[in-house]
């Protein structure tokens, strides 16, 4: 019975998110980002309840899951939706819930079938789900990054987070040539390095 209910939930979700494309998210659509979050929240929390986590913990896992899903779209690890968005969220979520339970040293109630959505699962091993904290050096970079100019921050974010190639950045129309972009990028990196050096050796 539980299996049927879950299969129904999964299939219903597959139908609902048809209208949102990967491009909507990749282009940074705020409304698509919000719609997916709200539409899947309740179902995800219900799905997660079987894993003996508190409501607050489940909301936290849902948010981490959603961000991990978004990151993988930005980095190009998810190039096209081969499953419904909710299936991605359930699969990533399950991985993160297990991770959290291992940290909490909780065991799973044997009445619940951990493989319940196996048929529709996404292979999470091909995704980047690394969420380890920053090292001391990276923390230094983190605090100095904000002091860069707006243009530098935008350029570096497009390149290192949103997966834009130099050519893609040129197409946005803010620079005259690929060489200008490369030089700007080099200058931004140099500024950042200098700031860090100045922080270490004032």
């Amino acid at each position, binding site marked *: 019975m539980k299996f049927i209910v879950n299969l129904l939930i999964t299939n219903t979700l597959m139908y*609902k998110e048809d209208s949102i494309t990967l491009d909507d998210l990749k282009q940074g659509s705020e409304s698509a*980002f*919000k*719609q997916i*979050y*709200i*539409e899947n*929240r*309740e179902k995800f929390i219900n799905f997660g309840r079987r894993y003996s986590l508190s409501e607050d913990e489940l*909301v936290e896992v849902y*948010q981490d899951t*959603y*961000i991990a899903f*978004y*990151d993988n779209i*930005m980095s*190009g690890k998810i190039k096209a939706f081969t499953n419904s968005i909710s299936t991605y969220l359930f699969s990533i979520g399950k991985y993160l819930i297990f991770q959290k339970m291992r940290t909490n040293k909780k065991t799973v109630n044997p009445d619940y079938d951990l493989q319940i959505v196996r048929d529709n699962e996404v292979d999470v091993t091909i995704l980047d789900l690394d969420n380890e*904290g*920053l*090292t*001391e*050096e*990276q*923390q230094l*970079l*983190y*605090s100095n*990054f*904000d*002091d860069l100019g707006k243009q530098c921050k935008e350029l*570096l*974010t497009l*390149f*290192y*987070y949103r*997966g834009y*190639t*130099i050519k893609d950045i040129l197409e946005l129309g803010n620079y005259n040539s690929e060489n200008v972009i*490369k030089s700007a990028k*080099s200058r931004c*990196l140099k500024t*950042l*390095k200098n700031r860090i050096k100045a922080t270490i050796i004032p």
Partner: protein
Amino acid sequence: MTKEDLLIGYFSNTLSNLHKSEFENLLKIDAEFKAQFEFEKALKKVVKKKENDKLKAKLHSFEEELKTPLLNSKTQVNPKANSISWLKIAASLVLFVSAGWIAYNSFFSTNYMSLYDANFKAYPNTEVTIIRGDTTIDETVRKAFVAYESEDYNEAIKQFTNLNANYVPFYKAQSYLKLGKLNEAKQFLNTSITNTVFVAESHWYLALIALKEKQKDQAVEQLQKVITLGTFKKDKAKELLEKL
């Protein structure tokens, strides 16, 4: 292909197999190249963390909206998807009665207090992710944000005072706002707008304070700045301006 192009190709995921071998070989034999690669790899992680923190703040604000059904009427994307519960019926009644009240008020005059109440929401912590046992965060920073997140604003102000980061005036202002100390909040927001971070955000909160103090001209001026900057609550600011 230059070394810079190789690195660009690596991070754009566009290296051919031939260039991949060249890239891997350089990593082994060229220490300077390896150092540059490690630097950019760390930067990629840091940029991701920055973006993730912003996303997390956004998700927190969605959660806040979900907790306050009064403000939630516009964000109910697909009401049919949600099951009907007594809680929602009660929320609808509250919404109905409140809408009537707001309509009654706005019919006679601009109700500054209700505009303030409907729009004021303390800014979430977007600076530091607090994870138990994480030793990479400075202790004072951690204490400040733990206090801020636990809504112990007096303690947060005390801890923020010991810090020197550019976000400090903004978060101190937020703490004073939550304590209802508008003059102190204004003072720190005015400092914050001269910083490089939270500029539009600071103008937004200055506009809200002006609303609370029924200073229409001030509110209009601050909202126009929010719209011009366009990085935070631009649409909300336009909406508010129309109501004034």
